[in-house]
């Protein structure tokens, strides 16, 4: 058994005793009832189970939850799909997903949403040129699988959020600053 304390969507959980063989996915879904994080392949291949981990230095990354222990998240701050909307209002990315009909069955959506959000926050700190944007989005979403094949819609939704606030996410290029 391990004593686990962590912060999820800004709320402290624990300390509580968890089994060493408990996966983070089971911890979220079965212990806390946070079923927005899905269980897909169980082998970290589809990343429908991905959550956001926030580092102390302000950077973030996504982590699968199906193949890693709950205990390994001790002391960490994470965000799940349940934490994106604020005061009942969906985030810009969530709205864009809906506007683009990005998801069909929705099973992979939480993973794509978390990955897209991490990308937005990364670009806000370190913008890229418009010329590099498509590649940057593709690389960020590359590891996520969608059995309904919604890849293009997800890509377009993320791109729209970025272009809608280009001065925040895109670098002014040497050739005159065309951010469109």
């Amino acid at each position, binding site marked *: 058994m391990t004593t686990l304390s962590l912060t999820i969507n800004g709320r402290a959980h624990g300390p509580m005793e968890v089994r060493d*063989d*408990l*996966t983070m996915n089971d911890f979220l879904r079965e212990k806390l009832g946070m079923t927005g994080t899905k269980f897909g392949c169980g*082998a*970290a*291949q589809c*990343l429908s189970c991905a959550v956001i981990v926030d580092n102390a230095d302000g950077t973030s*990354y*996504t*982590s*699968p939850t*199906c*193949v*890693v*222990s709950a205990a*390994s998240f001790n002391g960490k701050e994470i965000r799940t799909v349940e934490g994106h909307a604020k005061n009942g209002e969906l985030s810009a990315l969530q709205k864009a997903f809906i506007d683009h009909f990005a998801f069909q069955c929705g099973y992979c959506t939480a993973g794509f949403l978390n*990955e897209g959000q*991490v990308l937005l926050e*990364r670009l806000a700190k370190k913008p890229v040129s418009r010329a590099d944007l498509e590649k940057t989005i593709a*690389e*960020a979403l*590359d*590891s996520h699988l969608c059995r309904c094949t919604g890849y293009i819609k997800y890509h377009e939704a993320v791109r729209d959020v970025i272009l809608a606030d280009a001065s925040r996410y895109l670098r002014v290029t040497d050739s005159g600053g065309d951010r469109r």
Partner: protein
Amino acid sequence: MKSQMRIKFPVAVVALLTSMLTAYAVSSVQSDSLATPESFTSTADTEARSAAIFAELGKVLTHPRCVNCHPAGDRPHQGELGRLHQPPVERGADGLGLAAMRCPICHQQANFDPGRVPGHPEWHLAPRGMAWEGKTLGEICAQIKDRERNGGRSLEELVHHIGTDSLVGWAWAPGFDRRPAPGTQKEAGTLAEAWVKTGAVCPTR
């Protein structure tokens, strides 16, 4: 007389089966073990003995637990058959993966068997210059002797690395149904030491 035969026949069958099973067990143990340096003393020629000792060490170096993370390309392999790693991760600039898919995100401090994921605090891909995949034992031998391609290690440091490095040691405690490398890390270190002491001669092939 007939009753004695009736007893002897089943006993003989049981004895035969037992000896077959024992032989099988011994042979399977032997395939997962390493010969000691002393077992090569019958080879009088020192160079030949050195190369033979390296060939024995090669059972470890060419084992899937080692080669899978010494790939020729930018993607690690996994499993006994060395198939490409899934999910499709890549080497990245530092051998720790690309920005959105870093090795330590899944590969934690230790093996996590419920998720079937191996782990170690320093889990990463061997540099491209240390690729062993697709090479002969002779080529691997020449490579790991070459400071340009072995991380700048002297032969003594190489012996220490093989015999004591904890990431190398993972190969003997791989977790979840993975076949460990032959022998023990200590035995592999002893072989490496004996190979160096006999001149660090490489096998011709």
